[in-house]
């Protein structure tokens, strides 16, 4: 099973800055292993963020994104106590959702 994400949502004024760290290998599909065989691509393909259940961000990611990626975005109108949830789905179908409370 995938390791948990670290999500921080910090409110300043009428918006919240959300910082997300995801644990993922993000294998590009370009590298070869010790035996010279291509390591198959294995990366996050879809990212969704929700604010109190409402989708506020969707992204399609490819193999160019780094290992253990960091994502930062701003949610307008988010208040302290609001729930920010982030979901990723990788190209092998594995998925992980974590939630944080804005403060």
């Amino acid at each position, binding site marked *: 099973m995938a390791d948990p994400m*670290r999500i921080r949502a910090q409110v300043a004024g009428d918006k919240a800055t959300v910082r997300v760290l995801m*644990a993922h290998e993000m294998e590009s599909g370009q590298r070869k292993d010790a035996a010279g065989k291509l390591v198959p691509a294995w990366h996050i393909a879809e990212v969704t963020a929700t604010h109190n259940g409402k989708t506020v961000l969707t*992204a399609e990611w490819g193999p160019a994104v780094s290992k253990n990626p*960091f*994502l930062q975005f701003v949610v*307008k109108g988010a208040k302290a106590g609001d729930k920010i949830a982030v979901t990723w789905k990788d190209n092998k179908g594995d998925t992980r959702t974590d939630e944080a409370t804005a403060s």
Partner: protein
Amino acid sequence: MRTTSLISFLALGCLTTTAVVAQKTAVQSIEEYRAMLADGNPSELFEAKGEDLWKQKRGPKNASLEACDLGKGPGVYKGAFVELPRYFADTGRVQDMESRLLTCMQNLQGFNADEIAKTAFGKGEQVNVTALATWLSSESKGMKFNLPQAHPQEKISYEVGRRLFFQRAGPHDFSCASCHGQDNTRIRLQDLPNLTKNPGDGIGFAAWPAYRVSNGQMWGMQQRLNDCYRQQRFPYPGFGSDVTIALGVYLGVNSAGSKSIAPALKR
């Protein structure tokens, strides 16, 4: 309530922008790059994993590590990192964080410590040892190094470490001191701290475990020293061996009073 701005620092993207700005030394650019990355230091992922592993019942004995004695009594982990390596009466040897974790994993959880020590870095239980060391180091973040030197074995270990540091050998006739024995030197773009004296807060011994952005790996002090020996073309030292621990004592005692920034972020 829509997202208006999306800034994705996808690790490598920042490099090119800083390089374009003129009148900046390479070192300054690297510092800037590090500062940009520091906000999302992936070592936090390893911290979270390590904390889980500490509390989780695992191994043949199905026990947690919560009763592990890291030198300040069973289960006390706050501030333990900045007092390691130290002498442990139960094992009769000086141990650093990682070798002490192996002892606890063997005695409490029933793992085979020798087997883990022989496992390659980044494989099997080694991954868990690194995660545990990362979390435990974070529990002493900002504290000052204060390695005990009261026990004769600890004094011997320091002296052994000092001599190893200056021992020249191998096909390149290298010693640790060849690179880390003088001030203001660099290897390519990396500043080389002078480790024969106190290098200051968060430098050298006070900056490991660290996450290496370039290869996406979390390294503990044992792997750091192993790689130093690799670069010197020495044979690999054993994991948690007396050699790497003695070097840890030498570096740690020299860093006395300096603050630990571990888990840190490296290029």
